[in-house]
Structure formats: structure tokens, C-alpha cells
């Protein structure tokens, strides 16, 4: 079986956590990856500079969608400062599968969208 599509990735892809939208999000952002057409939206509820609730929605390849699902679990309850500290490698480590250069943007789209939503930094995470 393929390294890329380990059980964890498929599980998050097929049963995404925190999937959907929030009724009155404090912040929200949506973006796409023009190469694959992956699309992700993230809604945030924020209290005391902390992410108290998060939802993502979107469509695209398994890597992009599983990564978004994993990211929502990772940051729920975290402070915005902690989110600021989160780098590309942190998310790639969470995914736990080898991501080739061609799929890097698929894997990192959710983090890009999160950072844009949380504090307006709209660029590819490093």
C-alpha cells in the first residue's frame, strides 16, 4: 500500500473533523490552490485571543482535505500566538507521510488559509 495514503490520511479525508461552517464566525477566509483546484474555507470563533471553535469546508485532493481536518484538531483551543508560531514543518510532521514538492501546496493550503483568517497573513507558510 502506498506511503502517502496511510490510514490516518484516508480517515481524515473520509471522515473530516470540524467540517462545515460557523453561523457567526469572528473570522473567516477562503482560498484555493490554482494548480489542483483545491479549495478550503476556515471559520474561526475567537475569545480572549484563543481559537475556541473552528470549522473548515472545501473540496480537493485527499492530502489537502486531510491536512485541513488534522489542522483544525491541532489548533482548536490554541492561542493566536501559538498559531503564529506554527510553521509548515509542524503541519507536515502531523500528517506523518512523505510529501513530495509537487504536493506541498496541497498539504499547506489549510495552514495558509488559517493564518490568513487568524491574523491576515496571506502567504505560503514556510
Amino acid at each position: 500500500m502506498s506511503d502517502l495514503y496511510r490510514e490516518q490520511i484516508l480517515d481524515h479525508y473520509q471522515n473530516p473533523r470540524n467540517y462545515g461552517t460557523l453561523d457567526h464566525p469572528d473570522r473567516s477566509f477562503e482560498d484555493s490552490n490554482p494548480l489542483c483546484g483545491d479549495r478550503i474555507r476556515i471559520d474561526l470563533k475567537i475569545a480572549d485571543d484563543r481559537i475556541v471553535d473552528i470549522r473548515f469546508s472545501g473540496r480537493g485532493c485527499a492530502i489537502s482535505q486531510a491536512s485541513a481536518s488534522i489542522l483544525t484538531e491541532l489548533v482548536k483551543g490554541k492561542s493566536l500566538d501559538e498559531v503564529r508560531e506554527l510553521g509548515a514543518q509542524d503541519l507536515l510532521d502531523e500528517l506523518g507521510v512523505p510529501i513530495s514538492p509537487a504536493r506541498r501546496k496541497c498539504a499547506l493550503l489549510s495552514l495558509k488559509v488559517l493564518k490568513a483568517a487568524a491574523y491576515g497573513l496571506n502567504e505560503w507558510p514556510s
Partner: protein
Amino acid sequence: MTASKPVQLDVARIRADFPIFQRTVRDGKPLVYLDSAATSQKPVSVIEALAGFYRTSNANIHRGIYELSEEASIRYEEARARVARFIGAARSEEIVFVRNTTEAINMVARTWGASRLRAGDVVVTTVLEHHSNIVPWHQLAAERGIVVRFVDIDDTGRLRLDQLETFLRNEPVKLVAVTHVSNALGTINPVREIARLAHEAGALLLIDGAQSVPHLPIDVRELSIDFLAFSGHKMLGPFGIGVLWARYELLSALPPFLGGGGMIRTVTTEGFTPGDVPARFEAGTPSVADAVALGAAVEYLEAIGLAAIRQHEVSLLDYALPRLAEIPGIRLYGPVGADRAGVISFTLGDIHPHDVAAILDTHGVAVRAGHHCTQPLMRRLGVTATTRASFYLYNWEADVDRLVAALREACRVFGVAG
């Protein structure tokens, strides 16, 4: 002379000519290369022609009065003559060397289009086109107010010629710009019929031959077309060399494209007079070695025979299509019949095409996934992307078997059932 049935290709011998098949991919798996619609692999004769030029004949052309430069010029012009014969051109001056199909189409837009088209004139293209046969016309629309019309396809992926006829009847159509073979669906368009319709309405016909010249016998005079664009790298040649063909009289009446060295007759401080065809369209130092290597590619293709290559791809299609159709959740796009080239686009359940391609890759199977630079077509089909396998003379049934096995594995991984 009786038309004899083309002989079967000796694929094992052909593969031995392509050094790339000696390597493995993804930890020792043999390479199953099913992406020739993007670019073809290269036989050793082409690689040697390219390296050999630099090794023994390298000099700039048309300038030096010394043996090497003369030799380089002769080899460049020999390549031009060979390409001309290959597509049935009346004379070799009708071959303009460019970088690729994209540049050839842009050259038509910038020379013929910019000198012949007025606001309100119509260029008809189709939803099947690669972006390279859409965007240059959109650019002229934005700059000069021409109108771009799109012929739709029917549900089998064939062009709606009735729509083309309606455009030709009711609008001031000056050019029909259409692909010979769709790079996404494999549809082979009826070029002879389209030429007749266009010419009856007084329009010219540009054919994007990127996917046809490498795979089908082409005779520009017999097809009665006006402009033909194609790329060397999809027909066993190197990157960086392509061709625009047009009739000599048509080319002679066109203004130059880029200005600079090589394309002029005289230059003074007051102005310049353009040079003859084709030099007029080849400003600056051309890709001499790449042109020479393209000549070697044509030589290789001619030795095998385009009719035999086409026949081989038809039998691969006949082998592949029913086997693919049995895979649970697969949806195959494109027409089935004699007007189908060796290109197979499909989707697999609701698995994203990039995930399909990534799983195939782990099995050493190289295919393309995405919109194939045909976004209007993807929208027309109601998909964001497809996975595409495409054949050439070095593919064989074993490649199809590996593709099918890997797709079944993708179904298992993603739990797609029939």
C-alpha cells in the same frame, strides 16, 4: 500501387532505442510512461543528433564564411527540408522554425491577425482547445475588438459542426482556429470537412497540430489547411523547437513578427526592409541544434511510418478501453470510434485526479492529472480535472496492464466500489 496494411510495430526493438526505459522509478519499478501527450521520450538517434551537433558542427548559421558555419547552415536547412517533406509542404521555405506550438499560434495572431483583423471580425475556435489556441485570440479581442466564438462539443466529445456552420453563415468569420486532435479527450476532428466549410465562407483555417503531427500521417495540401502549428518535443524531438507552416504566398504577404538580426534585408538609420520567407519570421539566432535534432526525430518517425504508429495506437486503445471500463467507479471521457487518438481521460469515483495520479506514481505509472490547459473543456464536462493516460509508439499492452492494476489499487485504497 495498392495500399498495404501497415506492419505491426516491433515495440521491444523500439523501446531499445529509448534510453529512458533503462532506468527505474520509485525504488526500482520499471517506468510505465503514459504521458506522451505532454512530451514524448527521445530515441538515442535524436539525443545523438543534438549532442553531435554541438560536438562536431557547432557554429552560428548564415553568417560565417568558414567551413563550420557553412556546415551548420546546411544542416539547419536540411532539417527544414525534411520537416517540409514530412507534412507534405510544397516547399521548404514554408517551414518557420519557432519554439513550440504556442509560439506558432501567437505568431499567426501577431502577424496575420494584427494585419488582417478589424474590430468586429470573428475568429471561431472550439471548447476542445488547449489554452494556447484560445488566449492569443482573447488577447486580440481585448486589443483590437475582434470577437471570439466557441464551437461546442456534443456529449460524445465531438465538435458540433452545425454550430460552426451557423457561425460561418451569420457572422464575419475570418479565421477558424481548431485543434486537429484534442489533448484532453483524444477526439480527432474532421479537418478536411472543417476546411471545406471555412473556405466556402471565405475564412482561413489554422490547425493546432500539437497532438496530430506526432501521431497521424499529415499532408497539409491534401487537408487543405492554411496554417499548421506543432511542437518538436511531442514528436521525439528536443524541447525548444517547433514549427509554423503556411503556404508560401500567405507567408510572403505577412508582416514580420519579432524585429532584429536575420529577419531583415536592409537596415538604415531611417528604417528597415524585411527579409524573405522564412527568415522574416526567424529573428535572432535560432535553435539550430534543436532544429537539427528535430530533423533526426522526423527521420526516426518516417522509418517506422506514421500509418504504422497510428495503427499501433489504435490497437492499444482497443486493448485499453474495455479493460478500463471494467474498473469500478471509472468514468471514461471522449469519443469511441475511428476518430479517437491514443489519449484516455478519466475520473475514478470521487477520488481527486491528483490522488489517482499519486497512487499510480507509486507503482511507476506516469500519467497526468489536472485540467490539461483546457479549462473551458473541463467546465463543459462539469469536472475540475481528469486523469489522463496517453500512448505513443513505445507503449505496449504491458503498460496498460500496469495502469489497470494500479487503478484497481487506487479503488481499494479509497474504497471505491462499482
